[in-house]
């Protein structure tokens, strides 16, 4: 029994057990969700449904990748479509110029990630010198430069873009390889995000988010750390761009370098909870199908746009910190209140517990000492926004 749990009074004996159970539940839930997602295309074979599913998975991975940089470091990037578009164009131009056909095109996808990293280095060296609003605007400016270059250069095919080689696959299972590839990238990105969050690197990133000057004063090599996160994020986004290109079979300047991509990804992360591991994933899982549903539901495109914007505003005003942080805070405070009520009927030690209860809720379970089982196991979604 740790000293901290002793301090918490009579209730403390139940606490580590409950935390362990919660972790087990969470892990079980994640596995069940993963299993459900894995068999999804076997059950729903409708091409329309699986197309939406592939889209959703691409955005799940993209939002998680965006979060690795923007969520952890606090630098809101609205230029990630640059990496997405570069990835798409890399695969497209590579397949066209080297006459790659069929499944061999998939071998070009890692190259898409590498090209995105090659773009991210100069982009990051320029953009990461400025902060906050200015950073956001610089990323937007770089984004426009890339879109305009895609329009104006001849090797990108100008306004007609690049088309993918034709895949002679059975139409009924056409989407499946894309689905599983997107799923694999998504799971790997979420795993990476989780690893980074618990690592020294992740801690350095969050120190930059909280106070960059102080972090530098404490010896964090801020530029190197920021750039590394930027490159990791770019690599995954580039891979996804390549995959997306082969899935859609065509890239145009305005679809590869799409401002809506930047904003959707940011919106997903904000909806779920910026800087949490599960938040952006949740955001993408909710938003992409919702967006598709709205477009289906309202034949009027504009009305669906208005509804989407209104939803967006509602989320920002009602859940300003995202679903995961707000939700987990609500749950912990509810638990603490219950604990407090149970203890209030008992002796003076119980009174003390009731006082400590809300306090513990405010700092979140992640603040528990590492000795407590469960606390170190999964910071995912447990930590409140900061």
């Amino acid at each position, binding site marked *: 029994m740790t000293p901290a749990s002793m301090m918490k009074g009579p209730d403390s004996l139940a606490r580590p057990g409950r935390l362990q159970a919660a972790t087990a539940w969470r892990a079980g839930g994640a596995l069940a969700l993963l299993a459900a997602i894995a068999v999804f295309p076997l059950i729903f074979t409708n091409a329309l449904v699986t197309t939406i599913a592939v889209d959703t998975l691409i955005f799940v991975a993209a939002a998680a990748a965006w979060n690795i940089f923007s969520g952890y470091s606090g630098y809101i990037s609205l230029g990630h479509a640059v990496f997405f578009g570069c990835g798409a164009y890399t695969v497209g131009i590579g397949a066209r110029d080297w006459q790659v056909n069929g499944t061999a095109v998939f071998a070009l996808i890692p190259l898409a990630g590498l090209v995105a990293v090659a773009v991210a280095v100069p982009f990051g060296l320029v953009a990461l010198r400025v902060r*906050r609003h200015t950073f956001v605007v610089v990323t*937007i*400016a770089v984004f426009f430069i890339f879109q305009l270059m895609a329009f104006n250069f001849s090797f990108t095919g100008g306004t007609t873009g690049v088309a993918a080689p034709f895949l002679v696959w059975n139409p009924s299972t056409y989407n499946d390889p894309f689905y599983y590839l997107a799923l694999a990238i998504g799971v790997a990105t979420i795993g990476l995000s989780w690893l980074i969050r618990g690592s020294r690197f992740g801690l350095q990133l969050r120190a930059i988010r909280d106070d960059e000057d102080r972090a530098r004063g404490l010896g964090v090599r801020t530029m190197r750390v920021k750039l590394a996160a930027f490159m990791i994020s770019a690599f995954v986004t580039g891979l996804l761009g390549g995959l997306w290109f082969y899935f859609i079979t065509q890239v145009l300047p305005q679809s590869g370098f799409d*401002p809506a991509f930047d904003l959707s990804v940011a919106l997903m992360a904000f909806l779920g909870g910026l800087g949490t591991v599960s938040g952006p994933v949740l955001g993408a899982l909710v938003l992409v199908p919702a967006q598709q549903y709205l477009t289906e539901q309202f034949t*009027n495109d504009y009305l669906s746009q*208005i509804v*989407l914007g209104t939803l*967006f*505003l509602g989320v*920002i005003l009602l859940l300003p910190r995202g679903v995961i942080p707000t939700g987990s805070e609500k749950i912990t405070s509810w638990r603490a209140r219950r604990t407090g009520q149970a203890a209030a009927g008992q002796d003076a030690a119980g009174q003390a517990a009731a006082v400590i209860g809300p306090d513990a809720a405010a700092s979140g379970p992640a603040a528990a000492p590492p000795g407590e089982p469960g606390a170190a196991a999964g910071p995912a979604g447990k930590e409140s926004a900061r």
Partner: protein
Amino acid sequence: MGRQIYEAVVDGVLVGGVYGLMAVGLTLIFGVLDIINIAQGILVILGAYLSYALSVHLHIDLFLGLLITVPAMFVIGVAIYWAFMRPLRGRERTSMSLLASYAVAIILEGILYWIFSPDYVQLNAWYVTASVRVFGFYLPYIYLFGFVLALVLVLVLYLILYRTRFGRSIRATMQDQTASRLIGIDVNRVAAVTFGIGVAVTAVGGMVYGATSGGFNPNSGYDLISRLLAIIILGGLGSIGGALAAAVFMITLESVVSIWSPNWAIVVFYAALVLVLTIRPSGLFGRREVRLQ
């Protein structure tokens, strides 16, 4: 060649003045509220459509119509501030306000598409079609009128800011919100009115843009906001003179480069921004960013 450059410079300065007015609105909002209003672009288009509706349906002259559209846009601005910006609190307020104003832009864009359809329209009047010989070449009157009006309005804004009591409270709020609150300035009211003023100038900007751009639709808002953002960053966020200078500089640069290649002109526009920021991260006239928090 020299003549072409000369024409491009005159053209750039005249159009740049109007962009300057719109950028001043944006930078003023930033200075007081620490908010970048992404909806500014679509609000300009809304202003243009208001002028369009007034002139087509009620046959009100474009400049006369401003007497209606400017107050209307002011009210819309104050309403947006009260409904969506004021409730934002906390540490993520800055990025949340970016997203919230973007959401407002999406909604407005949808509404405009719905009402006016994506077809391009243009504002028309005698001074849009008729040209006058100035500086040795022909130019539609609207360029001159628009520039003069923008100049007058910037002057009026300057007088409000530097010669009135209310302007002083705006400047005080820009410098230090907490201290202003302490000496009895109603910061909320200042913020709401500033947002209103910042949005009201888009009525004028929209009218001139609608008449000079050769056609606009709701999608034009993206083009506008990306330019305006580049301009206010280049000028230094919150700097009014900087926004004006950067607007004239950038639009003139774009106009001159487009003699050789209209396609690459806009790339040069953004490349200039990136280049300047690598040398001077706070923009041309910006104050060095003080340590935050």
